[in-house]
């Protein structure tokens, strides 16, 4: 207690998020006086130690930023450097990169939907407690995630921090036969993903809708992964090269992660809801159909329903992986040659949690002069605080313990990757 009518929601170490951070909410009477998502994990200085490195090292170094989404870091890095150097890639390499990304989406979305987020809705402290009562569900998660791992391992050389992606392509590309061996597992995964949509849609969701600015890539022909223009529901429509003209990162005293805002406006939302709402018509028919079957159509404005949207994206990732495998013919060369020349290149790709921006300036020896990386979680941080300000106000009458748990659940809806954003989570509610 901090005084009459005041209370604090505190979570000193938030569970089931990636990294270390804490949440502090101060309630005075029926008013939310303060919300701070404190990111105390130390800054990691990746942008600084990329300087002076050869561009070929960037995909491997940046992959180390995250154990969950290393493919995203590799993809944004190679695309940005290829733009700086004017490298054109083989269409088969483009397909393989999408397949590589599908593998990561299957791994990451399965982990979040089943192991991190579902226990919140079913009233369990964690997935282990959930497994005792929902064994078949957890078995399904294990098998799904394994299939994502197989894709990442095949294309990336290993499951964690893959090493095969490089500027211009891959160090080694798979044979048609190697990809065909994934088909039967992926056909099972597609059906399991459809079941995941139906299962998640049957959960109960808090009634909490917000008027978000959704920001995601949009591509004329496909659901976005590696490329497209950056668009929003408030008129944004830009190339990656224009990103820094429209978005700015701000330092806030209580966080080692920067807060990103749209210039002239404010917070915005990236990730599954943004992609779904801005690209619904680009989903493959199987994903589109099951979304409509469970009553999911844009605009989805309730962040808690992101678990269902992630499940729809699992359907997409499995269907897309199967399409690519059927179409695939190995490229003549595993990678295009990359020249040494000065240049600046920017790229945005869709990490499982949202857009990931990279910019590199290179010198004539191919060395990195400057690097800038804006991870999805730092783009969502300001929005998370604003959501909590609104959400906590509805929980004023709740006992502190339950209010605290609800607020943690809200934060987990974002699938925040705090290590990426420092770039980690504890929760404190003060009354």
């Amino acid at each position, binding site marked *: 207690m901090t005084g009459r009518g005041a209370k604090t929601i505190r979570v000193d170490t938030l569970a089931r998020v990636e990294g270390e951070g804490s949440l502090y909410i101060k309630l005075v009477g029926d008013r939310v006086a303060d919300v701070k998502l404190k990111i105390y994990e130390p800054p990691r200085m990746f942008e600084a130690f990329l300087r002076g490195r050869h561009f070929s090292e960037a995909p491997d170094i940046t992959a180390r930023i995250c154990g969950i989404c290393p493919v995203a870091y590799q993809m944004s890095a190679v695309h940005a450097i290829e733009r700086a150097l004017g490298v054109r890639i083989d269409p088969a390499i483009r397909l393989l990169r999408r397949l590589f990304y599908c593998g990561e989406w299957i791994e990451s979305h399965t982990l979040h939907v089943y192991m991190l987020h579902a226990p919140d809705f079913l009233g369990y402290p964690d997935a282990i407690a959930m*497994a005792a009562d929902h*064994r078949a569900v957890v078995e399904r998660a294990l098998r799904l995630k394994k299939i994502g791992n197989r894709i990442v391992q095949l294309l990336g050389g290993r499951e*964690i921090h893959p090493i095969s992606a490089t500027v211009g392509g891959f160090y080694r590309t798979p044979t048609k036969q190697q990809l065909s061996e994934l088909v039967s597992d992926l056909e099972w995964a597609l059906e399991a993903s459809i079941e995941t949509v139906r299962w998640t849609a049957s959960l109960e969701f808090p009634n909490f809708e917000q008027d978000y600015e959704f920001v995601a890539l949009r591509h004329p022909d496909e659901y976005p992964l590696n490329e497209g223009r950056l668009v929003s529901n408030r008129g944004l429509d830009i190339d990656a090269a224009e990103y820094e003209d429209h978005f700015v990162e701000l330092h806030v005293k209580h966080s080692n992660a920067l807060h990103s805002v749209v210039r002239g406006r404010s917070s915005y939302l990236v990730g599954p809801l943004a992609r779904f709402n801005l690209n619904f018509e680009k989903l493959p028919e199987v994903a589109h159909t099951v979304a409509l079957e469970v009553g999911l159509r844009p605009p989805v404005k309730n962040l808690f329903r992101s678990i269902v949207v992630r499940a729809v994206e699992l359907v997409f990732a499995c269907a897309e992986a199967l399409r690519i495998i059927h179409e695939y013919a190995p490229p003549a060369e595993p990678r295009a040659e990359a020249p040494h020349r000065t240049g600046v290149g920017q790229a945005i790709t869709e990490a499982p949690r949202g857009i990931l921006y990279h910019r590199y300036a290179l010198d004539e020896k191919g060395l990195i002069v400057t690097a800038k990386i804006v991870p999805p979680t730092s783009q969502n941080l300001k929005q998370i605080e604003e959501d909590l300000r609104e959400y906590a106000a509805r929980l004023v009458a709740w006992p502190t313990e339950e209010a605290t748990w609800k607020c943690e659940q809200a934060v987990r809806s974002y699938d925040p990757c705090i290590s990426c954003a420092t770039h980690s989570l504890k929760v404190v509610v003060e009354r």
Partner: protein
Amino acid sequence: MLVIGCGNRDRSDDGAGVMVAERVRELGVQAEISSGESLALIEAWSQADDVVLVDAVVTGAPVGKVWLWDGGQVTTQGSISISTHGYGVAEAIKLARILDRLPKRLRLFGIEGRLFDFGSEISAEVIAAVKEVVEQITVEAVCDSARI
């Protein structure tokens, strides 16, 4: 026997398990490296009957102490988990027990660590413990193969 070395070489003493796996593999013992994330671990041991996990631990014992636990004894107390979303070795064992996915024989070598900051510097005591664990595993592997 399958050895699974867990940890992160970029988090100082947390790299102990990885170092053991790398070394025993060089000596011809089947070994894998894992971040220690639960689902990946359960998957890694799914094809093996006799699994030896090696991970850095913090129990308050002197740095470099080598623990050897039966998998059935492992609880979240006494193990440190610098792993994905907080799902580590102890959680993998608990979850696998619920799902009947524990190998027939599961043992855990714990190496008491001190430093878990970003970096590759490993405590001298931990390096000595790594050598000790490598020796124990390889001696047993040689005895196993002699029995075959």
